[in-house]
C-alpha cells in the first residue's frame, strides 16, 4: 500500500523508522568509517538518532517542517563530529524549507533535498567528487527534482536508487574532508561512510511509504 503523500503523523512515523534503521546499521556504518576514517561514524549516527527518537516521541510538532528540524537539532546537539554538523544541517536546512507545507509529497521531497544539499555544502564546502555525503545527496536531489510532480512512493524509490548510485561512485574517489581527508588514495575502493548513511536514510523513507 503505497502513499501519495504523508500527514504530519506519518512524517513522524517515517522519521522514527529512519532512526531505527540507522541505529540498527551502526556496525555497518562504523566499519565503513574504519576503512576511510576513524571508525566512529555508526556510533555518532546511533547517538544522534537515539536522541532524535526521543524528540519524535515527545511529539507536539505544529507542522512537518518542525518534525524534520527537530531531528536535525537532536542530531546536531548530541552527536558532535563531522556528521553531527553535516547531518544536523541536512535535516535542519531541509526541514526549514518545508515551512508552510501541510503534507509531505514528492514536491516536498525535492524541496527538502535541494535545501539540504545547499545547507550541507554551505557548512562543509564539499563538492561532488570529494568523497562525502554530498556525493550521495546531489544525485538524489537531482532525481527528486525530476520526479517532483509524480507519486511520492516512486519519487522516493528513485531518489534512494540515486543515492545508492552516488554512494557506489564514492568508492573510486579520493577523500578530501573529515578525518579521512588525508587518507588520500588509501581509501579508494571503500564507499564514503556518510554517503552510506544517507543512502540508508533514503531507503528507510522509501520502505516506509511502500508498506
Amino acid at each position, binding site marked *: 500500500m503505497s502513499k501519495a503523500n504523508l500527514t504530519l503523523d506519518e512524517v513522524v512515523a517515517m522519521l522514527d523508522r529512519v532512526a531505527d534503521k540507522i541505529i540498527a546499521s551502526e556496525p555497518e556504518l562504523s566499519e565503513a568509517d574504519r576503512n576511510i*576514517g576513524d*571508525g*566512529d561514524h555508526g556510533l555518532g549516527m546511533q547517538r544522534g538518532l537515539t536522541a532524535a527518537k526521543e524528540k519524535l516521541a515527545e511529539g507536539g510538532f505544529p507542522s512537518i517542517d518542525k518534525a524534520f528540524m527537530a531531528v536535525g537539532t537532536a542530531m*546536531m546537539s548530541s*552527536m558532535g563530529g*563531522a556528521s*553531527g554538523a553535516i547531518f544536523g544541517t541536512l535535516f535542519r536546512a531541509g526541514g526549514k524549507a518545508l515551512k508552510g507545507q501541510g503534507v509531505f509529497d514528492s514536491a516536498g521531497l525535492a524541496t527538502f533535498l535541494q535545501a539540504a544539499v545547499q545547507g550541507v555544502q554551505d557548512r562543509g564546502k564539499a563538492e561532488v567528487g570529494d568523497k562525502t555525503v554530498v556525493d550521495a545527496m546531489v544525485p538524489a536531489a537531482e532525481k527528486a527534482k525530476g520526479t517532483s510532480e509524480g507519486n511520492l512512493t516512486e519519487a522516493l524509490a528513485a531518489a534512494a536508487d540515486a543515492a545508492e548510485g552516488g554512494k557506489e561512485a564514492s568508492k573510486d574517489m579520493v577523500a578530501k574532508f573529515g*578525518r579521512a581527508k588525508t587518507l588520500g588514495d588509501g*581509501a579508494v575502493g571503500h564507499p564514503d561512510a556518510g554517503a552510506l548513511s544517507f543512502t540508508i536514510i533514503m531507503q528507510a523513507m522509501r520502505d516506509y511509504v511502500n508498506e
Partner: protein
Amino acid sequence: MRKTPKIINDPNACAAELLDGLVEAYDGEAKKVGAGSIVMSDLPDGKVALLVGGGSGHEPIYHGLVGSNMADGAACGDIFAAPPPNIVLEATQAVDRGKGVLYLYGNYAGDVMNFDMGAELADDEDIRVETVLIWDDVASAPPERKEDRRGIAGLVLIVKIAGAAASTVDSLDELVRVTTKARDNTRSVGVAVAAGSIPATGEPTFDLAEGMMGVGMGIHGEKGVRVDPLCTADEMAPQLLDIVFGDDLEFGDGDEVILFINSLGATTQMELLILNRAIKPLLAAKGIKVYDTVIGDIVTCQEMAGLSVSLLKLDDELKKYWDMPCQSVGYSKM
C-alpha cells in the same frame, strides 16, 4: 589480536564518565559546565579567555590541558567526535570574562564545523570569538596546503604557550598573535606501529600489518607518507627528522627549540627515551639547541602504539611564555 581489556562501565558512556572523573581530578579548581565542558572555577574578570576542545578518547588532551596558566576551559565531544555547537557555546559563555575567547583546537573537519557553529551562536550572545587552528602534522599535506593539515601532538606546546600568554596579555588580538606565532613555529610528525581501539565497539581504528610501521600516520590512523617494516629507534630518528626538516620552516644553527616526544598510548616511556637518545645528536649536528625536552603520553589514541616528534622553534617572547609555571592534569611545569 587479543584486545586490551578496559576498565570502564557502559562502553557508550565513556566520554561522559571520564569528563566527570576529570572534573573530580581538579579537586575544585575546575568545574563541569553544561552538557560537556570543563572550565576553571575562578577565572578573574577581564581575563582574555582560552578555550580548547575536541573529541574525547585522546586523554589527557584536550580537556586535561585546562589549568593554571593553561587553557581556561575545554569543550569535549564524544569519543573521537568534535563537541557539538551547543557544548561549544556553553563553554564559551563560561570562560568569557568580557575580553573575548580564543578557540584553539586541531584542524579536523568536524571540529572546524562544530566550533564555527559554536562561534556563530556566541556571536548571537555578543561574545567575541577568534580561532587559531592547530595544523602541525607535516606529513598530512604539503606546506602550500597548511589548512589541510591535521593537528597532532604539537598542540601541547602551543596550548602551553597560549595558556601562559592568556594569563598575561591584555587583549584577544594579542593572544591571537602570540598563539599564531607558536602555531606557525611548530612542526610534528608521527609514526604508528599498532592501532588503538574504540571503547564502544572494541574495534581497532585502523589496520596495520604485523611488523609494519606507518610513517606520518595521524592519531586516528589517518594515512601517512609510507608503510615500511618496523625499524630500530636509531633508524627511525633520522627518518622522522628528515620529514620535519624537509618542511618550509627553517631549523638551523643557533635555533633553540622545545622538543616533545609523545607516546600515542601503549608505547612506553622507555621507547620515547631510547628515541630521544637517537634524536639529540641529530639536532646537535644541525646546531639546534634544545631548550627543554618534554617526554610523555599527552596526545594519545587509546592503547595505540607509536609516537610522534614535535619541534617548537623559540624566540625570546615564546621562551618567556614557555618559562612560566603551569599546572594541569595533562602537563605541568615548575
